[in-house]
């Protein structure tokens, strides 16, 4: 493994965007930061700024009011970048499916790399999803 790939895999910085979820998955994401799960072990840092992020972590379904924001954030992230969708409603629309203002899954707006299903997704599953995304990140996509 060369240095760059190794470093990319070891230092994924997250941007967490809530696209209109019920907040169930967001709470699980925050749980990952706690001492119990401590995702910083893997070098993962929650950045809150697209310009610094490698992984876009989206919860909630894509919808009319804010798909534009989602796209904007995605565009502001420098390559290589991957998108991880957390929760069923982000994957397909989930419980919000067919609601009037809902577009569907996040992949209706931006390309998605990893889907983490579950309503809500467990912290273990979220970490798993992020680690899966690292494989893609490593090779620079």
């Amino acid at each position, binding site marked *: 493994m060369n240095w760059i790939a190794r470093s990319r895999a070891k230092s994924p910085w997250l941007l967490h*965007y809530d696209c209109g979820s019920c907040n169930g998955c967001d709470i699980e994401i925050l749980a990952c930061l706690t001492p119990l799960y401590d995702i910083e072990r893997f070098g993962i840092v929650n950045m809150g*700024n*697209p*310009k610094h992020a490698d992984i876009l972590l989206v919860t909630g379904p894509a919808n009319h*009011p804010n798909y*534009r*924001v*989602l796209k*904007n*954030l995605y*565009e*502001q992230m420098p390559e290589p970048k991957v998108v991880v969708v957390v929760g069923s409603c982000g994957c397909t629309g989930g419980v919000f499916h067919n609601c009037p203002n809902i577009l569907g899954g996040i992949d209706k707006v931006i390309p998605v790399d990893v889907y983490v299903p579950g309503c809500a997704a467990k912290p273990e599953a979220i970490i798993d999803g992020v680690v899966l995304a690292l494989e893609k990140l490593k090779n620079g996509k």
Partner: protein
Amino acid sequence: MTASLIGIAILFPFAAGFVCLTLKNHKARAGVVFLSAIVLIATSILFFSQGTFPLGYTPSHEWDMAIFVLDYLLMAYFLYLGLNDFFRNGIKIRNVSTIGLVLVQAISLALFEFSWAPELPITVEPALFIDHLSLIMCLIICIIGSLICIYGIKYMQDHEKHLGLEKTKQNWFFFYMVMFLGAMNGIVFANNILWLYFFWEVTTLCCYALIRHDETPEAIESGFRALWMNLIGGVGFVVAIILAFNSYGTLSLITLISNPTPFLLLPLAFLFLAALTKSAQVPFQGWLLGAMVAPVPVSALLHSSTMVKAGVYLAVRIAPAFWGTSLSAMIAVFGGFTFMAAAILAISQSEAKRVLAYSTISNLGLIILCAGINTPLAITAAIMLIIFHAISKGLLFLCVGNIEHNIWSKNIEDMQGLVRRLPLITGITIAGMISMLLAPFGVLISKWAAIEAAGASASLLSPLILLFLVIGSAATTVFWVKWIGRFLSEVPSTEGLKMEPFSPLYHTPVMLLIGGAVVLSILIAPVYNWLVSPAVGTFYLTTVSTQSWFFRSAIGCFVAWPLFIVLAAALVVPSLFVKTKPERIRAAYMCGENVEYDTPQFRSVADDKFELQLGGVYLEEDLGEKKLDKWFKVIALIILLVLFVVVLV
């Protein structure tokens, strides 16, 4: 040869001024201004390369008589101004204080000259004394002053066009502008204190006339304020003359300085009073701030090469005489306080010219502080500050003038993102500010020397001075950088920079000045060796060596040129690296709510577009003029009072 050069430096501007006054034709007047600028620059450089210094020169006796008469005429004119205003507008502080101060001056001077003085007029051998300090001042006055006058040619055309004046007043404007340079040369050459006093009052007159040039009520008010505040200095001058003559029997400045005795302190304190009114030190800063109503070339002239520099020149000139006394320590405290107070007040100002004005006051305070510390290193710092401050401040005023004529505003907030609209002049302005603000430029080398000298001073008051120094210099950084920040704040764009059209009369002087600031900072070693070192060496033992072009004092060492290499590398290397392909450009982060990547707008409630509004920090509530100004004035007055008490006791 030298005699004629001195004559040209002092008399030619007066003559050229009168010619300007009579010329009604713009082109012809511009020609005269241009010609006199070239003559003055050539004279000063020739003088520098030809003369052997120090030298004394006494012109024929008639000149003494002429100055004697002109002096009273000048005072009569001031009196007329005061009375005229009195009869038109009734009792006001401005006319009452003008009349009062002129009367005090005239009566005491007349009493002195007609009753006590042994001869009429009092003569001094030599009447003019020129050493390297005078020479440095002369170079500054002639070169920078002339550049400002050249800039004024186009500026005043645009200014009058903007005001929509029917009848031009430019002949008066250039009359005073050019004459100012002559009077300043007179001040720095004079050895006879009476001559010095005369030229001193001429600069007051020029300053007054130039400030009220636009004749708006505000301009008239400011003009009068400048007049009467400077007349306080004039009174100080007269008292100093009388006291000095009483105890010494001579009015030769050099004799007084070279034979310091304790009796001398009181006249020196009064001379210092004159110096600090001229240099607009707190609590007399009001006139310089008011002077901002004048057209930009006037401000540039007042702040860089003339007027206020006369005050600090006098302070540095008389510094050897109070070496090691308590007066010296108090002067340092006074200068330090002004340095700090003005820098703090500058933070809360949003008008460009007022920021520049406070910065000037602050820097003059620093020079006076150095004169007060009074060690060779401190005097070195003072003289270098005079040089570099004159260049950078003249430059900045001219730049702001040009910007003002493009955006018709002097407010810093209106200059947001100007680097995109007017890249050339904004770039030069930023460079000028950086030359005031960052090492390794000349001003910072001087500041470095000042801090080290203050640290090394043996005075018991030195911790106080140090406190003023560090707070003042931190505040200086804040107000400059936040202004630069407003200039730089630009919106992402894929378009390249488009330079504004080059206008020779506007851009040449500023380019020459910024070039001068950079080159002289790089060549700090030769500048020191040729100019500063001999100027300090007239009265002090110099302690600075410039081996391998490092600026090395006994207690420290400033390596300037390696830092310039770093600076060059920091500018050149990235321009090779940095690629800006349009597809790389992204919007600024606004939580994903940007409207377009290249507009400063975001969407908020109901997806409406909102303009992004940013502003600088001004800390109006904490550091505003309203809150601090009066306290600063009171403290400064107390320091001044203590200064006089210390001298009397």
